[in-house]
């Protein structure tokens, strides 16, 4: 394998590993705030119990996100030195603002949020929770601005082969940013919601059905049921935006080779780039034209218009189907369980098992979605400005391969340990439950239960 491909796999592996955790923490921060505010308002200890359980998951996820994020900040330089040399004048300030406005905010206040409950007043602790949630969301904002700009670059001019910013407002609010940001934030909401619902269902199945578990379960299912239709709508809008700015990506998503009207929606196919056709195609007539142009006679772009300049078809095509498939599954599961909770007031064993199985479904959908958009941008790193190959470093392939193997090994260990630790926390929470509980918000120290 050549060095560029290895560098891509290495960066892709790291960024894939990284995104798993912010995807949880971005939304979980706001859910924790909701638990905290519900406790402040009602004084019902179940909300604080839910908070104390999920804040541990948050802390663990946060640490995983921080360490893999540090890795990323170095890999920009080790793997893609050409990126900063060519577009550093634009990427640089955006990354700097992420560090300055988001990273420090979350890193400093998470200390108070986690360990400061008995050291600061209740409102300062709530404020720390707000600031951490703001920090994670701001971080998502800046990084998605930069990522969107790489897809739809505007507001700059090239001088001597280097990009110079001409309009910061245009750069920040570039054409794909609002759609991508909304799509990602809702994806985070769904990921956290299904994790909360799934782990709560896991505890429910173990007969750990205390009020805190039920409250978290209800929160997770409700958030999921509300967000998923919004996500489908936003996803559609994002797709139409991509059609406008990156038609070759949409052509690859649909595995459509020829530009024309009445393009079918391909449900299954093995795209063959050599022969430039689909094998074993199963398709709905006019489907793609209907979805993308809202008209059966709508003209949909085909890959043959972009020969040699379009992304690899099969990975984009399949990732897109995986993402959409999970989205549909999320819709069915969240609405069915929400209906069940509303009508019967409780889960059935089977619905609980389905929720457990869906615990990490948000991860799979998020990764699949990122593969669609990132592989879909190839061969460009910054659309029309810089190709991925141009940005690569001169580090020899064996060294990239060796460090890649090292990263993959550690990521495999950490993912296993992470899921294992969450399940252990869930089992343990059901076992060592203090019998007496403080009831008023003013006596947090009455029955301490340790963090470890």
């Amino acid at each position, binding site marked *: 394998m050549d060095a560029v491909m290895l560098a891509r796999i290495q960066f892709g592996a790291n960024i894939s590993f990284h995104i798993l955790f912010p995807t949880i923490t971005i939304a979980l921060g706001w859910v924790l705030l909701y638990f905290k505010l519900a406790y402040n308002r009602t004084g019902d200890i179940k909300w604080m119990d839910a908070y*104390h359980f999920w804040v*541990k998951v948050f*802390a*663990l996820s*946060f*640490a*995983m996100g*921080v*360490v*893999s994020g*540090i*890795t990323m*900040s*170095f890999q*920009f*330089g*080790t793997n893609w*030195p*050409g990126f*900063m040399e060519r577009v*550093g*004048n*634009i*990427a*640089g*300030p955006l*990354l*700097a*603002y992420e*560090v*300055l*406005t988001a*990273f*420090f905010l979350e*890193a*400093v206040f*998470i*200390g*108070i949020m*986690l*360990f*400061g409950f*008995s050291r600061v007043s209740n409102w300062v602790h709530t404020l720390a929770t707000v600031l951490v949630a703001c920090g994670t969301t701001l971080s998502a904002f800046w990084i998605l601005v930069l990522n969107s700009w790489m897809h739809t670059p505007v507001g700059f001019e090239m001088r001597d082969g*280097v990009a*110079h*910013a001409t309009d*910061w407002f245009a750069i920040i609010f570039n054409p794909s940013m609002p759609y991508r940001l909304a799509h990602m934030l809702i994806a985070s909401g769904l990921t956290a919601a299904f994790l909360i619902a799934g782990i709560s269902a896991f505890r429910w199945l173990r007969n750990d059905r205390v009020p805190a578990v039920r409250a978290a379960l209800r929160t997770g299912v409700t958030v999921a049921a509300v967000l998923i239709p919004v996500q489908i709508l936003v996803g559609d809008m994002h797709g139409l935006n991509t059609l406008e700015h990156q038609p070759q990506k949409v052509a690859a998503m649909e595995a459509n080779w020829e530009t024309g009207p009445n393009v079918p929606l391909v449900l299954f196919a093995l795209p063959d780039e050599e022969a430039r056709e689909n094998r074993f195609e199963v398709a709905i007539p006019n489907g793609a034209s209907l979805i993308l142009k809202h008209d059966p006679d709508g003209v949909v772009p085909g890959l043959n218009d972009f020969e040699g300049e379009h992304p690899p078809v099969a990975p984009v095509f399949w990732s897109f189907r995986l993402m959409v498939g999970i989205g549909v599954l999320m819709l069915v599961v969240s609405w069915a369980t929400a209906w069940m909770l509303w009508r019967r007031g409780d889960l059935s064993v089977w619905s609980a098992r389905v929720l457990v199985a869906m615990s990490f479904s948000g991860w799979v959908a998020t990764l699949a979605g990122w593969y669609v958009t990132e592989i879909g941008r190839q061969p460009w790193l910054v659309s029309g400005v810089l190709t991925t190959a141009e940005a690569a*470093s*001169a*580090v020899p392939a064996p*060294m990239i391969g060796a*460090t890649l193997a*090292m990263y993959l090994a550690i990521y495999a260990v950490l993912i296993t*340990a992470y899921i*294992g630790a969450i399940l*252990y926390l869930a089992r343990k929470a059901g076992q060592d439950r203090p019998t007496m509980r403080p009831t008023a918000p003013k006596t947090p120290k009455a029955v*301490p*239960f340790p*963090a*470890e």
Partner: protein
Amino acid sequence: MMHLFGDPAVWLPVVFAGLMGVSILIYVTLDGFDLGIGILFGGAPEPWRDRMIAAIGPFWDANETWLVLAVGLLLVAFPMAHGTILTALYLPVAIMLLGLILRGVAFEFRAKVEPEKKRNWDRAFFVGSLMTALSQGYMLGLYIMGLEQTPWTIAFAMLTAVCLAAGYALIGAAWIILKTDGQLQRRAVRWARRAVGLVALGMAAVSMASPLVSPRIFEKWFSVPEIILLAPLPILSGVVLAGLWMVLGHLPDRNDRWDWVPFAGAVSVFGLAFAGLAYSFYPYVVPERLTIYEAASAPESLMVILAGTLFVLPVILGYSAFAYRVFRGKATDLRYD
């Protein structure tokens, strides 16, 4: 506005080199103490470990963010240098990252897994901290040697690796002296005393090696009047190290009123060493190859960052100080409630 202080292509790179330097100094000081505690973790008996963790628990995350800021400033302000330095240091960077990953997550995992697995994460915390410190020291050594890789420069880099790890152990022990009491504190005094010697050796080695490697640096230090003006730097370093050694001999004192002195001493040592290095290498960002002026981004982009930095950095310093204030005093058990 941009031309208020003269040509921005001249002063902006200096300002950003300064900001980057300050970030690096804050990073090695702050993450230095929590990395140091990770290194000392290896020799600490189990009952003390939770307490050592408690002394850094609320802080380590923010401490590490200064590294992200430092490398971020290198990335955004000196993109040419960022690529050159990081590809030259590809392998030690990878090892450092692995170390940072291991120790960062071990921190959380050790408190959340089954009791029988806790020991493994304790080991990961020690190994990760040591790997991080050694690879950072190794990178410092290679950087001083102009990023050349010969058997001699590698040997020198290995020496700086050990000495930087000792420096971190020193400041880590000093933090324990400040944040704990009793037996652990007494042991930390012994750790600190042992580290002082290695730190002195490291500083002497770097001071002698860098002028020998670079005629330019030799010239900067040993011509007149520089040699007289700069004399306070090594003399002061020696005095502080000797003073630290002596003070440690008398700690812990009866009322624990001087528990902050070793930490203050260690911070001064770090500051002095940093000042010496900064003086030697200015105006180069890649030693002998690329100056900060050649490597800098476009002035317009730097202005955009600077405006934000001048506004946000004081706020960051303010709330960081607040967090240290919230967790002031001797460390107590870490609790989420």
